[in-house]
């Protein structure tokens, strides 16, 4: 083993860095360009179809804080803009050939994009972010419209300020803030007419709201008139709307007063009298994005609905289009409404719902301009799959009509975060945007292909002989094939594509030669409740399951995944299994901990509670929240959970696991963070095994009290993996033994008052502080990223000045590398990986540390992991400029000397210390791909010792292979088989020719000598 380690190190140092070839792009890696789940709650961020010139694009804002433009033809991302974490996008407004966005608190920042390419045309701060008023929903009180005559934009921010600025230069023409600063009146919408700009809002009055309108001169920003409209609105979000048409000069404000529609036309002087429309009683208005085309949907209490139309003369049409009331669905919420405009400017309204009777999605599309203004509707059905995609949450419509036929396509957003485009009844494409919310992912190895010769051992002699004879018939064929393969065939290379997957239903997924094909089990966050099985070789989704809500299905709720464990691997025999531990929060505020036991290859339920085509049903392990859980790997793999009272629960809870648990429990310890008397602490726990039927309890054993005002941010467990060598042989033939305490974990703390951040490495059994460092906080607080593997700790932070403001030191990002070794000097050995944690030798260690200047801000870091841990561990980071990059361990060696290296140091391949880490673009694993907002990187070993699989997820999903010490265990890529065969056959030929010659010659020589 030692020899191999040395050999690997030598090889890795001799050969240059490992890098990717351009031809390998898309072969060894894959990348999912995602945008996030559409925010369909507000019309200003919900998906819409838009025409820019003759091109159609879908725009929407997403939960990942992205504004995206999709191509409706194939669902590809045309462009996307990613907003910063302090700059939440509140809405987008498509104006002409541009898309304008407002983001930040109160809509503090305005951006203007080219709608076709996404190029940033203008960025303008409208007010300081801390002056922004928080609003719920976030889009309330923000609006952008363009002036019909000029390039000017009118922007409503904070619900009280209207700004007029030049759309190209960003120069402010005028600014108006309402006198009450938004404390009484919140303006929600701007309407522009040639004569006046109307800011319409709601004013709080006793018990109800009143509609308030201010008319402003569009050129000077002077207030023409400001008045309350005598109205009483109970819910300003659903009982009030404004309808207008492009050719109209008088927009109409509509509201519902006890179910009756009241309306008034807006003039600059606000002199018009409000009038009620007697007749039907309605419950709410629904804005389907057609208010500027004079249409809105009216809902009644019983679930029926009608389309309200504004005629060309600016009057409300007498007749409303009634959608056919379907008795099949009684609940109002089952209907989704959508509006769309065609290239000629004709509006359409669609009503979409899932019919459980027919097992189909049904859509009614209404075109108000057809049938000479009477309106005409068209319906179609589509095969929506609610078992895989949940329920229809939002619909966007794109329709066009010729004579009396309506061709429509709808964009459906589902409760599981999928975005689908249906062209009438045909599914054009589907995007799994839930993958942008993945919070947990694990690699699971897949089994080898079952060999056909694995026949039962009970086979008799005669049958075996006959079988072998029958098999021997194929021998000549085999021989021919063998020779053919030997001469012409190519060898599997780690950079070769794995070819088409053999994932048909009977075979299942099988392993490739090097173990690059694994299943990635990924669980989504945001309460979308979905688990995916992804083929790691090509990124295809092999299976996906919806997480069921159990009893909470009746009251509603959501499932938030907490932990993912691989409880059974291929080496344990049978299909691999994973357990997903999740927190189910029911809408009646009850919290339960549930687990889902899944077959990693097929996604089927191991517990057989649920059928394959239905949502997965979980097992309620704790009637309450989870405090901590672990996977114990002692004789048998099982899970241990702790509830709020620190009672231990086992899964599977059998007599066998109980007895194993009772055996290993005394040697277990785990840390938790708590608050005791206003002081934050990290408290270590041990488990007292109960002898009777009560649950075992965990009790505190040690506590680390942090200084006053210091808070625990996170506890980061050590990354475990095989350790190939326990020491490091130095150039002078001495050895540094690695300090391999398996109980170490890292604690990150923040002390906001002192603007410092702490890094602690603790022993979980005793609470010994093995390492402690304090670094400066930055303006964002403490943002330290850390990773601990074997005896190597790295952490990343920004070194700046907060408070004092001197610029003496060098500002910038730092990466600190710390290595722990046993004893106080070389050749001291304490067997730290084996000794009891109560031995004095656990604190007998020393460490080396070095800080390096790091080129980027990072969002995640980890190290590579390989099958036996022999290969050097490189550092993999996800940088804020959307790259996944690897950094060589050799450059991060804390023992790099501060002078010219000696011969002995050169023998160790130590390089002279240089504070700046080399930033080699050849080590950018994600190369041209834009891998944005990575939250975590997971690495997994392949069958090849040299190679590690790297998966990053966050917004985008990206997978590649890395070989930190080069692919030393496979033929090099420039190995030329043809050449080898040619040489061997050439030599053979030479022997055949020269053989007789030599024989003749020796015969002749005999004649001469005798």
């Amino acid at each position, binding site marked *: 083993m030692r020899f191999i380690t040395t050999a690997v190190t030598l090889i890795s140092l001799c050969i240059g860095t490992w890098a990717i070839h351009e031809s390998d792009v898309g072969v060894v890696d894959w990348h999912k360009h995602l945008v996030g789940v559409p925010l369909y709650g507000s019309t200003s961020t919900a998906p819409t179809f838009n025409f820019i010139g003759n091109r159609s694009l879908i725009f929407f804002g997403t939960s990942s804080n992205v504004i995206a433009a999709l191509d409706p033809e194939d669902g590809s991302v045309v462009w996307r803009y990613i907003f910063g974490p*302090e700059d939440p996008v509140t809405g987008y407004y498509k104006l002409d050939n541009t898309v304008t966005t407002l983001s930040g608190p109160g809509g503090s920042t305005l*951006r203007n994009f080219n709608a076709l390419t996404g190029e940033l045309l203008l960025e303008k701060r409208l007010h300081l972010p*801390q002056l922004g008023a928080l609003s719920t929903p976030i889009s309330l009180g923000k609006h952008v419209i363009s002036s019909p005559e000029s390039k000017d934009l009118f922007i409503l921010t904070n619900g009280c300020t209207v700004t007029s600025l030049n759309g190209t230069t960003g120069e402010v023409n005028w600014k108006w803030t309402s006198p009450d600063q938004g404390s009484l009146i919140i303006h929600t919408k701007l309407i522009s007419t040639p004569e006046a700009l109307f800011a319409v809002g709601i004013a709080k009055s006793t018990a109800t709201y009143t509609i308030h309108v201010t008319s402003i001169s569009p050129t000077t920003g002077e207030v023409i008139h400001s008045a309350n409209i005598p109205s009483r609105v109970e819910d300003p979000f659903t009982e009030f709307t404004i309808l207008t048409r492009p050719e109209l000069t008088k927009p109409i404000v509509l509201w519902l007063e006890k179910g009756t529609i009241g309306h008034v036309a807006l003039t600059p002087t606000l002199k018009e009298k409000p009038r009620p429309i007697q007749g039907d009683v309605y419950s709410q208005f629904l804005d389907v994005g057609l208010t500027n085309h004079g249409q809105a949907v009216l809902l009644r209490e019983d679930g029926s609905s009608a389309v309200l139309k504004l005629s060309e003369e600016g009057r409300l049409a007498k007749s409303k289009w009634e959608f056919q009331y379907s008795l099949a669905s009684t609940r109002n919420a089952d209907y989704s409404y959508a509006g769309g405009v065609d290239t000629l400017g004709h509006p359409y309204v669609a009503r979409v719902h899932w019919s459980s009777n027919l097992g189909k999605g049904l859509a009614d599309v209404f075109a108000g301009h057809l049938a000479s203004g009477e309106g005409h509707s068209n319906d179609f059905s589509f095969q929506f799959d609610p078992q895989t995609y949940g329920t229809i949450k939002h619909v966007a419509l794109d329709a066009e009509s010729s004579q009396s036929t309506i061709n429509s396509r709808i964009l459906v957003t589902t409760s599981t975060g999928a975005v689908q485009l249906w062209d009438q009844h045909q599914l054009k494409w589907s995007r799994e945007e839930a993958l942008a919310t993945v919070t947990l992912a694990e690699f699971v190895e897949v089994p080898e292909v079952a060999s056909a010769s694995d026949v039962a051992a009970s086979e008799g002699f005669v049958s075996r002989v006959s079988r072998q004879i029958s098999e021997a018939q194929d021998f000549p064929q085999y021989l021919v094939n063998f020779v053919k393969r030997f001469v012409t065939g190519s060898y599997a290379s780690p950079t070769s594509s794995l070819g088409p997957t053999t994932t048909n239903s009977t075979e299942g997924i099988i392993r490739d030669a090097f173990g690059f094909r694994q299943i990635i089990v990924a669980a989504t966050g945001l309460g979308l409740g979905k688990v995916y099985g992804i083929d790691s070789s090509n990124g295809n989704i092999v299976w996906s399951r919806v997480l069921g809500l159990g009893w909470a299905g009746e009251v509603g709720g959501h499932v938030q995944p907490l932990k993912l464990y691989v409880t059974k691997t291929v080496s344990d025999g049978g299909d691999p299994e994973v357990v997903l531990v999740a927190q189910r929060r029911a809408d009646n505020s009850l919290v339960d901990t549930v687990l889902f036991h899944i077959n990693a290859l097929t996604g089927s339920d191991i517990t057989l509670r649920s059928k394959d085509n239905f949502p997965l049903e979980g097992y309620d392990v704790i009637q309450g929240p989870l405090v901590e859980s672990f996977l114990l790997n002692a004789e048998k793999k099982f899970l241990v959970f702790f509830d709020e009272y620190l009672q231990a629960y086992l899964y599977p809870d059998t007599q066998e696991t109980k007895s194993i648990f009772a055996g290993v429990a005394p040697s277990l310890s785990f840390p938790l963070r708590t608050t005791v008397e206003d002081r934050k602490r990290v408290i270590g726990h041990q488990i007292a095994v109960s002898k009777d039927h009560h649950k075992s309890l965990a009790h505190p054993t040690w506590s680390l009290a942090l200084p006053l005002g210091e808070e625990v941010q996170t506890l980061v467990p050590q990354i475990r993996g095989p350790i190939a060598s326990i020491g490091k042989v130095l150039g002078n033939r001495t050895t540094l033994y690695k300090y391999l305490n398996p109980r170490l974990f890292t604690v990150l703390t923040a002390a906001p008052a002192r603007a410092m951040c702490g890094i602690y490495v603790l022993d979980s059994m005793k609470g010994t502080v093995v390492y402690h460092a304090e670094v400066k906080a*930055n*303006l*964002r607080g403490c943002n330290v990223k850390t990773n601990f593997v074997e005896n190597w700790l790295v952490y990343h932070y920004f070194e700046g000045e907060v408070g004092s403001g001197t610029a*003496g030191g*060098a*500002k910038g990002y730092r990466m600190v590398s710390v290595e722990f070794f046993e004893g106080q000097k070389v050749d001291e050995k304490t067997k730290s990986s084996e000794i009891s944690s109560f031995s004095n030798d656990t604190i007998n260690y020393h460490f080396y540390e070095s800080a390096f200047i790091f080129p980027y801000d990072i969002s995640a870091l980890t190290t590579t992991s390989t099958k036996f841990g022999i290969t050097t561990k490189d550092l993999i980071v996800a940088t804020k400029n959307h790259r996944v990059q690897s950094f060589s361990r050799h450059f991060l060696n804390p023992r790099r000397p501060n002078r010219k290296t000696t011969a002995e140091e050169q023998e160790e391949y130590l390089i002279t210390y240089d504070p*700046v880490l080399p930033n080699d673009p050849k080590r950018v694993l994600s190369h041209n791909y834009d891998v944005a907002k990575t939250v975590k990187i997971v690495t997994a070993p392949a069958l090849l010792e040299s190679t590690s699989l790297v998966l990053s997820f966050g917004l985008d999903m990206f997978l590649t292979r890395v070989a930190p010490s080069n692919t030393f265990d496979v033929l090099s890529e420039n190995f030329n088989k043809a050449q080898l065969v040619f040489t061997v056959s050439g030599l053979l030929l030479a022997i055949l020719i020269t053989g007789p010659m030599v024989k003749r010659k020796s015969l002749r020589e005999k004649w001469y000598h005798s």
Partner: protein
Amino acid sequence: MARPFLLLRILSCIALAVAFDITGKVSWNDICPSATILGQAKASLDEGVFTGGITVNGQFTIPDVPEGTYLLSIISHDFAFDQLRIDITNSSLPKVRPYIPGTPMNPPSSILLPYPIVLSAKEKADYFVPPERFNLAGMFANPMMLLMVGVGVMMLAMPYLIKNMDPEALEELKEKQAKMGSIQSAFQSGDIKAGLSSIMAAAEEQTASNSTPTQANRGGSRTRGNKKTKR
């Protein structure tokens, strides 16, 4: 919770103090000729609390930056830019200075760059290495290969060389080979003493043969011809 709180607190301090909008421009060059090629990029101060997007014409504005010393970097996926030190003071325009990563901020560089800032891309990242291809010329350029070819040629040519040698030289060569053979076989059989003695013998002979020519030289020109025949 602590993080946004800290941020808000610091930002609220900023609101009271002077704030300055830093403006600048990315000038297009051969490395990065347009905003389309640059992609989405930002100008960022320090750890990125103050940022400004780079617009289609290369301009950027970082709004409301309080007094202080900052490090300006351009965050771009594909392009590397120089970092700059920006000093914002109450009295005058921001001071722009070049900054080399890894060097101390103080004392500041004596070079002052113009404001508004003008930056251009220094380098485009090249992520790929060309694949190694089988190269016949390269293979023969390898010294090992040359040695092997040399040995091969010698092997083939040896019999002819020996054939063309005159008989006396051949005799001598054979004698030397035999001696070497005996030394080798002695060492191989473990008889170090015999091996050593044979080396000594060979050495003695060498000195003897070395001395002969000197004696012969005294002898005059006649022996010279003789030596020629011997060698």
